């Protein structure tokens, strides 16, 4: 194959280790921490849009905004936010402890501890989301 001049300026590198198949626990917590962090930032923007409805439409605007969001789709969104916040918060505590020098020799146990605590909180909390989901209509 002839060497392509424009492409040859781009160095060849092996990115095979970014395949999730080969991720170990630390890589999973790193990636999930970043994804949940971005999700929480997106929520903050949505939250600002939602509460500034009072600026756009006064008390009435705010009330109708809140009413329109009492729908199944938003419950799913809130549940996803709940997943992200739970993992991000608990994993964040692990990261702070690591930076203080704790658990450096037990990193796998640290990951699974975060995983189990998050899973329990998510399992319990999800019950309330299911109840809300069933109680709300699809749209208003």
């Amino acid at each position: 194959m002839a060497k392509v001049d424009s492409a040859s300026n781009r160095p060849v590198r092996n990115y095979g280790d970014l395949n999730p198949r080969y991720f170990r626990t630390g890589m999973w917590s790193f990636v999930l921490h970043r994804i949940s962090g971005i999700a929480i930032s997106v929520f903050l923007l949505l939250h600002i849009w939602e509460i500034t409805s009072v600026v756009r439409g006064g008390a009435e605007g705010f009330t109708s905004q809140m009413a329109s969001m009492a729908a199944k789709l938003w419950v799913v969104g809130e549940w996803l936010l709940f997943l992200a916040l739970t993992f991000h918060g608990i994993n964040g505590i692990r990261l702070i402890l690591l930076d203080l020098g704790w658990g450096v020799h037990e990193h796998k146990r640290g990951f699974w501890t975060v995983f189990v605590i998050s899973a329990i909180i998510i399992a319990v909390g999800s019950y309330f989301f299911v109840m809300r989901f069933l109680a709300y209509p699809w749209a208003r």
Partner: protein
Amino acid sequence: MTRVMKEFKLRVFRYDPEKDAQHHYQTWTVDYREGMTVLEALLWVFEKKDPSLAFRYSCREAICGSCAMYISGRYALACKVQVKDALEGDTVTVSPLPHMRVIKDLVVDQTKFWENYARVKPWLINDDPAPERERLQSPEDRARYNMEIDCILCGSCFASCPSGVTNEEYLGPHALVWAARFFRDSRDKGDRERLEIVANEYGVFRCHTVFNCVEACPKHLNPTESIQELKKAAMAYKLGLIK
């Protein structure tokens, strides 16, 4: 596996800068021998099938650090990993160390790796006049850097670190291990100098404690332990708690 393995497939990353625009994988069927290492398999191909296959190796006993590669999803020394432990089905996949520029086949450009190593001044800094004989150290003080001196500078941790994927200015686990090695040495007087080098966004603060370096290290070191110790000292230094 009860069946005795006679042969296996060796799938190797190929890239020839003079012919190829992109890399591809080439597979050979290799005769298996009990206890065969991945390096032996590469040498088998080199001798019997394709002498153009490029790879680094030297000591064959996991001490020179030349043959670090990415083998079936693990950062490893080709001379230390046995074929039977690296099989995925009947195939062993060998790629160059990730994220570093490939020069040819399995050989990567290590320039940044060595430059970053040199940046932390990996030598004893002590301007006090040399004593008549050697600078003495108690066995306890000597034991403080037992872990760090086992580093063979193979590059596995540097290639595994996701903080370094997009930014080769990040010192990397290997350089920080060596900074810690001298930081922990009672004879060394360069603490302040080294903290200046590591206490910034291209040093310890870019470590996100992913532990890929710990998983990757073929000598079973814990670079994160070294980095976290430096991180604590760097914080204290930046807050003015240590001079």
